[in-house]
């Protein structure tokens, strides 16, 4: 794990489009918007209890993206001893997109990409705030 400050961790839920939206929003955030400040990590590694993954979430501020109310990403990070600075629920993003046709758990339609982009921008804002808070403390 590099020294980027924030880890963005989606649930990647298999059964619904929300899991895929969280996954793609994460890639947009860490590859396009905040590549110098954030990264992602496999949630499955936390489930396994892989020492590198556990250490990573304990040493970095985390943002979780969950596709369903079970909030697997948030819970797994917290159970591993990590700090979740912001827990985003994909379903909340749909409030501004009533009637949207986001696609499926396999592939996103145009509405799905729009929602993913909005979530990624939300993540970007959170990351900037986390950085600002850290700078203010120094």
């Amino acid at each position, binding site marked *: 794990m590099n020294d980027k400050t924030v880890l963005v961790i989606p649930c990647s839920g298999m059964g619904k489009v929300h899991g895929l939206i969280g996954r793609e929003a994460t890639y947009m955030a860490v590859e396009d918007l905040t590549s110098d400040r954030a990264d992602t990590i496999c949630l*499955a590694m936390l489930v396994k209890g892989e020492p590198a993954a556990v250490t990573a979430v304990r040493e970095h501020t985390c943002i979780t993206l969950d596709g369903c109310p079970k909030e697997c990403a948030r819970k797994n990070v917290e159970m591993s001893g990590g700090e979740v600075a912001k827990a985003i629920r994909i379903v909340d993003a749909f409030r501004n997109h009533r009637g949207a046709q986001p*696609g499926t758990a396999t592939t996103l339609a145009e509405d799905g990409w729009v929602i993913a982009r909005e979530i990624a921008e939300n993540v970007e804002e959170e990351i900037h705030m986390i950085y600002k808070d850290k700078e203010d403390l120094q």
Partner: protein
Amino acid sequence: MSSETVKVGIISCSGEEIPGGSISRLATRRVLELLRPNNTVTICLPLFLAGNEAEQDFARTHPTITVDGCDKRCAKWGTEQYSGPVNAALVVEDVIGADRLSKCHRSARNMNADDEEAVRVLAERIAEEVDAILAMENGAAIENDSPKEGVCSCSSPIPASVLTIDGERVEIPGLMLIFEQCMKNGVPLSEKGSEELLRTVRVYHPIDREKEHAYRKALMNAYREYYRSHQFVPLSSVK
């Protein structure tokens, strides 16, 4: 256990950090949706830790295949630790090869024909494992939606449709299921809709970049026919 009740569980690691995780996720979805839709189920791997007892019982109540994106084998380990022993454990690189995997991407925004081929190869391998498990489970028969309409390369019938693209007959497995889903999602009969059709079909079927235009046109023609036969609205009123 009767053939109607046997459902093989497929658990993908879906590792976000690596392309192998994306390939494992998409191949699993392909098996669930297209190759063995009547004989397979899935559950999110992280749910084993975050979920309740019923969810953690998954591998005890289903014969299970794990699909891992790397040799850490988190799906296999997590499933066995929290749920029960698995019947088969696949690792993406072992199935598709290191060279092919090195050309794959983790985001759908960047995926191309290499990713599509990797998904296809892995999905067919998973389907083979499903068949082997079903054969062992009291010789359970494989249920198929339409056994007469085409045969995939693993010799198991799946619904397919034939389109003529650039003068060539091309068989596309699961096209009607894709159209059904697109129609449900409101994919329009327009240029924008043809983009979405192409993107969706590409998940399951390799499409060369230079043939994209021909595919888009043929897919939209077929989708228009499908749309017309499945909705009672004058075609001229559909935008």
